[in-house]
């Protein structure tokens, strides 16, 4: 399956990476396995955001809502219904996708910053409901100790499950990006008026992109439930949304693997920095400023620039 994504040396590295990922539980202690699982699912979340942000040019500033709603939907299904847990896992993403459709339909008429703000407004509304509705969502305590099927309750089980689901979602998203729909979406990002004029129904394409992004954010949400067995309202607070944006920016908007890399860098740094200072956000803020100043295309964007010097020029702003 990697052949379609990578070529030549990249393919070898890809396979090597995969093998390492599958062997990790044999080498690493439990805590690090947990961290790697979190990196995988956060990377999935960031990639799903990048589908609309980097490829679609839509200012989806409150993406965490779909992540949180997916997680809550799964958690509530698991704790409050007697249905098979595997059904709950499917319900989470579907609820997220439905929310993506509803919010998309309301917001899509507005452009750029207005879209972003209305989206943040709607997202905050969802957050408030989750936060205040004690009897249903557990309020700011969240839900703890969510029961999972036997096979997933060991750390390694959860890890392999997360790894496999993430890889599958990654492949699907990659296919979407490279499909005609993905091409149209990138055209819309670069120039919506032109896209309309070559016969693309811009709003509809954007709406579908929002639904897809919502769905995969929901997948990341239920994976969090699997890995952490908790949910809490901060999962849909707006600051998390901007942190995901930062991951995309840090890794590189315009490359498919950028957001995953960005997520990995930020989570590794956070784990590392938090061990000797409680001022992690200060570090993150300063790091962000440096990235915006010196690496506006992100780490992968920078690497690509160096590799194909002369082939890819920085975008000319008109």
């Amino acid at each position, binding site marked *: 399956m990697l052949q379609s994504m990578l070529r030549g040396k990249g393919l070898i590295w890809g396979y090597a990476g995969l093998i390492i990922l599958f062997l990790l539980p044999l080498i690493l202690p439990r805590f690090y396995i947990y961290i790697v699982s979190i990196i995988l699912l956060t990377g999935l979340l960031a990639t799903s955001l990048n589908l609309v942000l980097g490829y679609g040019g839509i200012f989806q500033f409150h993406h965490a809502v779909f992540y949180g709603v997916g997680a809550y939907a799964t958690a509530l299904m698991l704790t409050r219904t007697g249905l098979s847990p595997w059904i709950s896992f499917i319900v989470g993403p579907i609820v997220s996708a439905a929310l993506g459709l509803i919010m998309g339909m309301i917001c899509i008429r507005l452009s750029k*910053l207005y879209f972003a703000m*209305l989206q943040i*407004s709607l997202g905050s509304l969802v957050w*408030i409901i989750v936060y205040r509705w004690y009897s249903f969502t557990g309020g700011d305590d969240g839900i703890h100790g969510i029961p999972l099927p036997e096979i997933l309750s060991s750390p390694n089980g959860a890890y392999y499950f997360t790894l496999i689901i993430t890889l599958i979602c990654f492949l699907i998203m990659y296919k979407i990006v490279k499909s005609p729909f993905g091409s149209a979406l990138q055209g819309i990002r670069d120039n919506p008026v032109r896209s309309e004029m070559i016969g693309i129904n811009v709003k509809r394409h954007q709406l579908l992109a929002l639904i897809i992004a919502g769905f995969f954010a929901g997948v990341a949400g239920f994976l969090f439930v699997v890995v952490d067995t908790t949910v809490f309202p901060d999962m849909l607070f707006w600051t998390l949304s901007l942190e995901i944006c930062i991951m995309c920016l840090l890794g590189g908007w315009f490359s498919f693997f950028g957001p995953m890399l960005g997520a990995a860098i930020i989570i590794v740094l956070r784990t590392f920095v938090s061990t000797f200072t409680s001022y992690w956000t*200060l570090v993150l803020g300063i790091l*962000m400023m440096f990235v915006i100043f010196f690496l506006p295309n992100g780490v992968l964007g920078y690497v690509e620039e160096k590799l194909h010097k002369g082939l890819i020029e920085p975008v000319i702003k008109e």
Partner: protein
Amino acid sequence: MDFIYTIFPPKVLSQVFVGLSRTTILFIVSSGLSLILGVLRIPNVAHGSLYMIGAFMAFTISKVFGGGDIGFWLALIGAPLGVALVSLIAERGVFQFLYEREHLMLLLLTFAFSLVFGDLVKIVWGAEYKSVPVPQVFQGFVNLFGGLPFPLYNLFLLIVGPIVAVVLWLIVNKTKIGKIARAAAVDREMVGAVGINVSWVFAIVFVIGCLLAGLGGALVAPTVSVTLGMDHTLIIEAFLIVIMGGLGNIWGALLGALIFGLSQSLGILIWSQFGIVFPYAAVIVVLLFRPTGLLKSTW
């Protein structure tokens, strides 16, 4: 005066006044945000942090001067100026180099600032709750309409709000800086071409906007517990108000703040648990019918 009660029950009236004092704070903060958005086109997420810094500075100044009346008035002047200084440093040090970037980058940059400011506040003031005493003059209540108790301090807020609005209007419409700023909002290159140093005009506008955030923080300090995280919800509210009113429009910010403040305070009467939902719903309704805000935006 009793006829008023026959139309509006006292409970509703008192909530209206609570909402109006909230409106004052929201207006002062969001008018600054709107100014920055309208002229500089920066969606300044750090605005909320500056509001928080304003409140903490007010706490320190008030405490240094013994927590009395003098301390309060000095805090009211000193805190906004302190915030203005912080913002001037940020603007000259970082923002001025990035005006040409896309909104998304600017927004993330200001978010980075808000993260940094958040931790700096934690380092300087610690994570405990702080409280600023209400000055002697404004302690106690007045009776509105002959029987409705209303805190004097809130009455003071109701007077400050319109004053700020008028002063701001005068600055924007009657001073040279304001005129240049308005012209720059429409066409930046033109203003640069006629030989005006746009960079400094922008700096001044940015500082005035941030000063308003600091003033909002200083004014709100005696009525709430000053604490970390007080910026998080406020900045979202301020953004929504600005969007609802029309980007860059000062009167739009006032109108938006009114709708937001009143729907919040009255919403609590209707449905206490989810009263906070109403202002958000109001924003959604407004944007559905007027996608670019209630009043004309400068964009």
